[in-house]
């Protein structure tokens, strides 16, 4: 038998880094590539029929553009404008949609954290916009800045979170007129990942763009040259785009920054109860706004979003991660590929605590993302209660499943070494593979090692205190907050950001009536 080796001395027990070390073993930073064939619930003629229906919505019913400037831009481009109703014909729509790139990059202030949107690439962002947060120790409570900062630290910490999406929880202790200034400051200093600005009023989105520009040390011209941030707008389904969303979209577009257009089509409530009809309506609503972008600045990146799910028909409450949601997302994926646009979906669930329901609905949502060919996964970590609560524990649990998905997406090699004929021959029928050199060379990285799953047997688990998943996650997030290190930022830039915030606050920020 050959002499076995692991590669020399490494310091014995004292030198074994596994005995202490960080809260979790992180995956390396990288943009996952999903090379699976997408699942296609619609036959080709189904895609054609859905396209035809979406075009008929745009041609015969029209979309309400509750923003005069946007409506007039479309009218000038040849659309029919009747009060706020805009109708556009299919040739025009297809010509404009073709101008949007199928793939693009967004570069944050730290260029190493650049992300790719489109192709087979898949990126994950934190939960966005819940008004509440919760953890096992303090229970559910309205969001505040301290919690907002905690979630930003998680966002920065995890390599499986690729971008800082909307506010991971709304800091309700900051007045709405200046909230965006403090939030952007925190986002740009506590993280160095791609960030987002809300289209909730001209001042908010303009300030967000300025702060992203300052943080990256860019001139106006440099900022406008390529995507540095993004926004997400939602249509107010059925068939409406509202004023602040369109205003923000236009402002972002003029400075070359990408917009994700995500209709909020809950089947049975704001869209037909049939999932195909709901997706078709969603496609029409999204394309209408994407056309607007392409009229203003041809070639500006846009993403088509899918947030089609069903409601509980006994209450009207939205449901997520359902079988219907999975199919809707997959159909949206087929349509995104038809229009050659990157696709956004979400990791959503309707559970009220980080329990089994939250896990299976989230897992369904994640598989929907993988099997639909989704490129941007919003709300990838932390979401509970249909988006009304950001959970500390669920954030950690979700990162575990995100890492598992990333591990799943790694190519499966099949070389002679991988087929391991020689190892099978060497072990024969009476041995085992634990000690064979083929195993010695690979054991540490052969499989995905979960950081929160517990694979011990029952007795060992019981001896350890019968700790369930949320409690394990609770311990981990505390350790992460202890370990968190802020990304480096040039002191002069940090000062410039702080000055900007102070100045804009003194000017009133985004004026409100309260």
């Amino acid at each position, binding site marked *: 038998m050959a002499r076995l080796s692991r590669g020399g001395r490494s310091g014995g027990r004292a030198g074994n880094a596994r005995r202490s070390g960080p809260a979790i073993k992180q995956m390396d930073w990288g943009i996952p590539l999903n090379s699976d064939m997408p699942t296609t619930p619609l036959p080709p003629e189904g895609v054609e029929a859905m396209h035809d229906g979406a075009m008929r919505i745009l041609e015969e019913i029209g979309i309400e553009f*509750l923003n005069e400037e946007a409506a007039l831009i479309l009218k000038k481009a040849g659309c029919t404008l009747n009060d706020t109703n805009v109708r556009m014909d299919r040739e025009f729509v297809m010509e404009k949609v073709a101008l949007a790139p199928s793939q693009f990059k967004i570069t944050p202030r730290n260029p190493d954290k650049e992300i790719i949107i489109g192709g087979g690439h898949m990126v994950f962002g934190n939960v966005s*916009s819940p*008004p*509440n947060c919760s953890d096992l120790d303090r229970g559910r409570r*309205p969001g505040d800045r301290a919690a907002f900062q905690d979630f930003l630290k998680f966002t920065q910490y995890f390599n499986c979170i690729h971008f800082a999406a909307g506010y991971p929880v*709304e800091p*309700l202790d900051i007045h*709405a007129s200046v*909230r965006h200034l403090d939030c952007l400051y925190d986002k740009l200093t506590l993280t160095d990942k791609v960030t987002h600005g809300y289209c*909730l*009023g001209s001042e908010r989105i303009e300030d967000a763009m300025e702060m992203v520009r300052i943080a990256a040390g860019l001139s106006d011209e440099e900022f406008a040259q390529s995507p540095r941030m993004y926004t997400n707008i939602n249509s*107010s389904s059925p068939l*409406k785009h*509202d*004023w602040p969303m369109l205003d923000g979209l236009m402002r972002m577009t003029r400075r070359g920054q990408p917009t994700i257009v995500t209709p909020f089509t*809950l089947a049975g*409530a*704001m869209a037909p109860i049939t999932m195909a009809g709901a997706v078709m309506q969603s496609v029409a609503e999204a394309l209408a706004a994407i056309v607007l972008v392409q009229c203003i600045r041809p070639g500006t990146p846009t993403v088509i979003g899918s947030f089609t799910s069903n409601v509980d*028909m*006994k*209450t*009207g*409450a939205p449901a997520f991660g359902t079988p219907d949601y999975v199919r809707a997302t997959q159909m949206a994926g087929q349509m995104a590929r038809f229009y050659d646009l990157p696709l956004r979906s979400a990791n959503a669930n309707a559970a009220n605590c980080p329990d089994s329901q939250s896990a299976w609905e989230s897992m369904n949502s994640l598989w929907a993302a993988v099997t639909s060919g989704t490129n941007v996964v919003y709300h990838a970590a932390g979401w509970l209660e249909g988006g*009304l609560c950001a959970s500390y524990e669920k954030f950690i649990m979700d990162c575990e499943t995100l890492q598992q998905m990333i591990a799943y997406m790694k190519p499966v090699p099949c070389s002679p070494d991988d087929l391991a004929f020689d190892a099978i021959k060497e072990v024969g029928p009476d041995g085992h593979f634990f000690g064979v050199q083929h195993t010695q060379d690979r054991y540490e990285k052969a499989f995905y090692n979960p950081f929160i799953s517990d694979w011990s047997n029952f007795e060992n688990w019981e001896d350890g205190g019968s700790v369930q998943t949320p409690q394990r996650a609770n311990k981990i997030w505390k350790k992460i907050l202890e370990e968190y290190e802020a990304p480096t930022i040039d002191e002069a830039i940090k000062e410039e950001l702080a000055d900007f915030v102070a100045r804009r606050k003194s000017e009133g920020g985004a004026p*409100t*009536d*309260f």
Partner: protein
Amino acid sequence: MPDNEDTIILEDLNDGDLVEQMHDDIYDGLVDEIEQGTKILLNRGWDANNVLTEVLVEGMRVVGVDFRDGILFVPEVLLSANAMKGGMGLLRPILAQSDNIASTGKYVIGTVKGDIHDIGKNLVGMMLEGAGFEVVDLGINNSVEDYLHAIDKHQPHILGMSALLTTTMPYMKVVIEELDKRGILKQLHVMVGGAPLNQEFADAINSDAYGRDAAVSVELAKALVGKTQGRVLEAM
């Protein structure tokens, strides 16, 4: 449904059986039958107010219970509400001529300024109508002035405000403060609702009730109107 259900001749039923049948017909969402039954009762000399309370409102009360308990689907409740509105359409002109209360109560509802989200507000409005409320829907994006104008014009028992955004929900406080300043809060109940709200917020802005969903909102509204009527009696 058994075939013989269709062959019931409402005219042939005595008052007791007819009222029971109409409760079933409201539950089943049959607008034609409710209109016919309402006419029959009026022709038999029933007081319009009794038809309203004993037949229509009572029928919808049962529907409300099964909606709250997750037995009925939203579209079923809407059909029931539609049937009830059919009967109400016949009663309202008569009630308007008398001193009788023409509804469970009057309810002005609208989404606040800066917010155009209305699906939840619409659902609450429909359920309130189903419970016999006369609902005035102001739609979306309502300023203090819009609410004041509607309150002045319609003299509601309750004002309901809705918001979906954390950046617009503080506006509810602006409205309530203005109502308070003008002394309107003494006669008017204010209910608030919307996804980002909670009881603490509702308390903090001095509203009377927080409607966490459509079913609960209707129950709270009914309770508040009961209070109003009690208040009126006390004043007398």
